[in-house]
């Protein structure tokens, strides 16, 4: 079929192209092809895509069967139509009509020229070949076609003048004749000359109509037969259906939607057990509950809960975090209460707290703070202890810097910044003696040996030993002997002595001149040795002096820091040296460091030793009091922060279990400090009494004159001492008063 189709196309196209040479064969060929088509059509009847050609071929078929010769023009017309169809000429119908009406007109027209059989059959050869011949070629039957006589100029002129249409005529060389051009042909020529399409009726730009009807045709070029599988039911589908049916029958597939379970159900049983742990094994920390509202949050709070205007204004001055977040307000009626603008925000903040705040369990002590206080024995049960001010010793004009009681308890020695040292009768408050030392007195110390009533006084750079002139005559004589400077002692030692023991002319005592200020003097219990401390003396800061031999020695080659205080052990050959932060205990017999007490204090100001020698108390500039039990540890047994300001002095009672501390805050604290002979029992410390009464003294400027006022006097209670036998306490204040507190 494809081949025949091609043939038909070829034929048609050939017909279109060639003028006359093949036109005679055309009919037969056309007929043949038509027959072939018809045959094929009979064989396979239903090809949709070739409908048009079928129709054509049917018609042609009919024509071929009937009168082949007679229906020349009809045939011709059909072919034309086909041709016009093929090239898509819209004016085909009109053309056909015209031609069927007038056969001659059609022959003479340019289109009929192609179909008119040419008379000359020489073919397309150059006509020069026949130049010298009498004929120009041959007709169909082979007869010579004679050349016509050529018209000469005249004839042609005559013709032109005779016939007005003569210029319409064109000479046809090939057939050797004049052809008269029709009006249409003339028009055509003129259109060609104008550069237009020759046929006026041809629209070069008409809309394109596809030559093939594509719709619903599938692939136009496939002529594969429809496969069989398109016509039989699918096996796989059947299988699937069987499966589904089976599943439906067996109830595997439920067609209706599953019934909605009730959203809530009984989740918990009746057990009221409380779980402390979460499911992941960690302890459950419930979120703290919101605080319950108080009266002030009421819409109608009592008047006392509503802050006044001034108070509200004063909130503005507060720090933002201190400012109350909620200001109570009163509404006269419930209907006046507006919506709380912060409601959602507060709940949102609560939400944030719930999921963003780290939670830890914290014990909140909702207890009376007093329950934290230790249970102490009542001070009443620990009597006697000094409670009330019994006597005041007045006479000094400057701050009293130091006091010391005589071992019998009859006399009290006091040194003051006004440069005097006084001896008082304890019982009466009478001032027995006044020495003018000529410089500010830092420290006074009465010899603890009752047989040797000698006092040591530290006055600026000197230590002065004086006779207080108490006691009977024998004693007086003894002392006079002691205080007489032995010139012999200084001579045998050839090298320069450490300290010169010189006679103090004015006061008839001995003067030991140091290189630096002496701030502390303390006696050994037996009364022969005493030690002086001059903190700025570097390696000569601590000097031990022997009264009987009138000798001085420097037991230490160097000190670890600034020495604050030095004490002798009451019974054993030990010496306690307090530097700024540590207390070093030296064994004097072995000449070695025996212990180093780590105090943890900022700066030690004073030191006192229990009569047993195993317990030591320290007062510090940081207002702390330390009790050391040296049998126990080198660290404090107890640190008490009792004062508000620096502690100036601490003191132990010789026989009663009492100790005390005094401070710049004008108070003196009396403690019960019981040391048990049983080593297993720790000392008992009970605060007993806070003694007040001193006035604030003036702090002397330390910078103005170093010599006069070194070290700076404290403004509060500067020194305390216990009475050697009675539970009484002497306190010396910067207000130049000495007080005696009795039980």
């Amino acid at each position: 079929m494809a081949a025949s189709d091609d043939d038909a196309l070829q034929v048609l196209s050939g017909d279109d192209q060639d003028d006359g040479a093949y036109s005679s064969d055309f009919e037969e060929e056309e007929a043949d092809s038509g027959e072939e088509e018809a045959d094929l059509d009979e064989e396979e009847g239903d090809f949709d895509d070739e409908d048009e050609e079928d129709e054509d071929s049917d018609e042609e078929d009919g024509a071929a069967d009937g009168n082949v010769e007679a229906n020349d023009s009809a045939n011709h017309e059909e072919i034309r139509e086909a041709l016009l169809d093929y090239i898509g000429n819209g004016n085909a119908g009109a053309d056909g009509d015209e031609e069927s009406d007038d056969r001659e007109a059609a022959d003479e027209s340019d289109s009929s020229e192609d179909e008119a059989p040419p008379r000359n059959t020489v073919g397309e050869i150059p006509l020069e070949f026949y130049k010298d011949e009498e004929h120009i070629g041959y007709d169909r039957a082979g007869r010579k076609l004679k050349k016509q006589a050529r018209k000469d100029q005249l004839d042609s002129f005559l013709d032109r003048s005779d016939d007005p249409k003569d210029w319409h005529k064109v000479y046809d060389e090939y057939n050797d004749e004049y052809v008269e051009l029709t009006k249409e042909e003339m028009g055509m020529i003129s259109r060609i000359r104008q550069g237009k399409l020759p046929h006026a009726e041809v629209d070069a730009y008409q809309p394109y109509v596809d030559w093939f009807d594509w719709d619903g045709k599938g692939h136009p070029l496939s002529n594969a037969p429809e496969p069989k599988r398109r016509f039989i039911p699918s096996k796989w589908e059947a299988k699937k259906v069987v499966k589904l049916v089976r599943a439906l029958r067996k109830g595997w597939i439920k067609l209706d939607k599953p019934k909605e379970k009730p959203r809530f159900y009984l989740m918990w049983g009746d057990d009221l057990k409380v779980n402390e742990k979460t499911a992941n094994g960690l302890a459950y920390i419930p979120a703290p509950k919101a605080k319950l509202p108080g009266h002030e949050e009421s819409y109608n709070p009592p008047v006392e809960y509503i802050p006044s205007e001034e108070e509200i204004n004063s909130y503005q001055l507060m720090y933002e975090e201190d400012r109350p977040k909620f200001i109570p307000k009163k509404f006269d009626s419930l209907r006046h209460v507006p919506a709380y603008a912060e409601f959602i925000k507060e709940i949102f903040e609560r939400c944030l707290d719930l999921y963003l705040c780290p939670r830890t369990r914290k014990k909140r002590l909702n207890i009376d703070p007093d329950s934290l206080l230790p249970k102490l024995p009542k001070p009443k049960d620990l009597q006697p202890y000094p409670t009330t001010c019994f006597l005041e010793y007045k006479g000094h004009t400057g701050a009293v810097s130091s006091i010391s009681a005589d071992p019998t308890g009859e006399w009290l020695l006091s040194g003051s910044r006004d440069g005097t040292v006084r001896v008082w009768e304890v019982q009466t408050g009478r001032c027995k003696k006044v020495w003018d030392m000529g410089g500010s007195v830092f420290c006074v110390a009465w010899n603890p040996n009752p047989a040797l009533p000698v006092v040591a006084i530290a006055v600026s750079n000197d230590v002065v030993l004086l006779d207080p002139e108490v006691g009977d005559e024998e004693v007086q004589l003894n002392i006079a002997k002691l205080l007489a400077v032995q010139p012999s002692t200084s001579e045998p030692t050839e090298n320069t002595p450490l300290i010169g023991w010189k006679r103090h002319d004015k006061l008839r005592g001995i003067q030991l001149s140091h290189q630096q200020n002496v701030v502390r003097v303390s006696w050994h219990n037996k009364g022969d040795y005493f030690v002086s401390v001059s903190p700025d003396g570097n390696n000569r800061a601590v000097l031990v002096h022997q009264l009987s031999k009138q000798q001085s020695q420097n037991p230490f080659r160097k000190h670890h820091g600034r020495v604050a205080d030095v004490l002798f052990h009451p019974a054993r050959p030990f010496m306690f040296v307090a530097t700024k932060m540590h207390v070093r205990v030296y064994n004097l017999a072995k000449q070695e460091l025996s212990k180093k007490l780590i105090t943890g204090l900022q700066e030690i100001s004073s030191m006192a030793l229990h009569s047993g020698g195993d317990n030591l108390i320290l007062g510090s500039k940081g207002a702390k009091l330390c009790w050391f039990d040296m049998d126990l540890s080198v660290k404090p047994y107890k640190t008490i922060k009792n004062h508000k300001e620096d502690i100036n002095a601490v003191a132990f009672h010789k026989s009663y279990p009492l100790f005390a501390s005094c401070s710049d805050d004008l108070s003196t604290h009396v403690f019960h400090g019981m040391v048990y002979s049983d080593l297993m029992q720790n000392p008992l410390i009970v605060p007993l009494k806070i003694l007040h009464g001193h006035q604030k003294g003036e702090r002397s400027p330390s910078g103005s004159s170093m010599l006069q006022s070194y070290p700076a006097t404290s403004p509060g209670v500067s020194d305390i001492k216990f009475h050697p036998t009675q539970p009484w306490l002497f306190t010396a204040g910067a207000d130049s008063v000495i007080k005696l507190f009795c039980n």
Partner: protein
Amino acid sequence: MCSDLSSSQVKQVKNAVKAAKRKLHTGRRGNPGNAAKYITRNKALNRLQIKLPEFRRLCILKGIHPREPKKKFEGQNKTYYHVKDINFLLHEPLLEKSREIRAYEKKITKARAKYNTDLAHRLQNNRPSFTLDHLVKERYPSFIDAVRDLEDPLTMIHLFATLPADTTHSVPFERVHSCRRLSLEWQAYVTRTHSLRKIFVSVKGIYYQVEVSGQKITYLTPHVLNQVLPEDVDFRVMLTFAEFYETLLGFVNFKLYHSLGLNYPPVLDPRLEQAAAELYALMKDLAGGTTSAPLLEDASAKEDDAPVSVDEQQSLMEAENKEKRIAESQARLASLQDRLKQIEKEKEKPQDDLETRTCRRLFQNLTFFLGREVPRESLLFVIRSFGGAVSWDGDGAPFPENDEVITHQIVDRPTQGHKFLSRHYVQPQWVYDCANNRILLPTEPYLLGRIPPPHLSPFVDNEAEGHVPEYADTIKRLRLAANQQLAPLPGSESGIDEGELLVAAAARRREDLEAEKERELAAMEKSYAEDLRRELAGKSFSGEEEALADVPESEVLPPPKEDDPKDMAKMMLSRNKRNLYQAMEMSNTKKKEEVKLIKERKRKADEKERKKKTRTM
């Protein structure tokens, strides 16, 4: 490429060695350190392979919170979680589910993008759903655990119940609706069991304290006014909380209803629901214990007089016929219920504790009518919880305003046009104050148009706080008087006329006393008797009051004694204890300062009043 591989392998080996070493290390030490126990948030995110919002959501739902390690090994300002918590999250089915949902959402968007509307529609309808039931059970293994943690949920649910459904903040209306429903169910349960204990109308909202299974739950509800949704609040967080709380409260409600032998969820009367009286509808559904609810209520509840639009009226006309039938059947039902109630009551009585009984009887024989301007839901809740009968001005009211049985009309307006002489016209605060104090207070100070006495917080222990407001004292005396059935004190300076109501209340109280023999009250009696005796002896009451007032004053300012044993003992404190002591003292003094300030204000106010009085005299 080859070098890359080898380097990565080397890294792996190194990591393995490190891990082994760590294992060895921790193994030797015994207990793992902070670094092994805690994990920072970002690391947790990496481990869980989720984004922060998802993590946040999971934490909220799962109740996981950050913890405070002793040593913050990764820096101070990082959030630390316990590793166990994070591992717990890692095994949470919800995590997998959320991934699944996310994938599913992608499918839907894809289908939409391809204009495959069918598929998109189908996918949208079959979205995978999830429930939080297992989380509730996991977080609260027993019921009592859940009840203990109910404060936040109730506050949140009550808030969401009043929120407008809002698209800009994506508050879905379903959530609002369900929250409203849950809150009403909760209130209905509370009413039914008379377990409301305290009410406090604050500026922030109304606090309710409810006692359920022995646990006191205090929650806050906003005033029923339009809530403005603030812009700086992340509603996603709020909604996640609400989502969990909703589930939790649902299950709690179920359990509570179950314990009463009621069906859950209760069936709402659609008509009452429409009339915005859902609470009443629910209460009616549960109305078992309330003997005071008369039959009349049910019948007259059907009266409806407010429809505005025409078509609504028509539908109502149709409904009326139905109503009649319903009313009949309901009457029958009610009579049945009455019989059931009697049986129930016999069963129930011994179970109720003293508190519940007093609460139930407070408003027992009173009938209230709520004006249009008062917060209906709150008052309905309170009055019904304390055993009163209520109606209101509006749709679905059980009985009309002109009903003779009404004893109290709650109004909150400057003037009232027509007044029934048989009623007390009181302000809403009267109801709250009565409920808090468990006695019927004299209505006079609360009458229409007056400024009511101060509304005191029932959550404050005045004695412990150090300052007793004047009105609290008055109330205390009234209570004692009511408990003893004694005439009010002649010398009471408050000048409040205790009316017949009080006497009636006192009489009832005496009956109760006889029946119940309360020990506590007896003790109070004793103290009161002592007071009386003292008064008879010649001291004036007010004088004693002053004396009483003096006592705390002396506490405030102890005269500086020379020898305070406390000072002595304070010396002996160790540093830690001293600091603690000082902190405690500081807070105590701060509190005392506050009380002092309040007392000062009170004194000033009193002075002002006195001056005014003398001036007018």
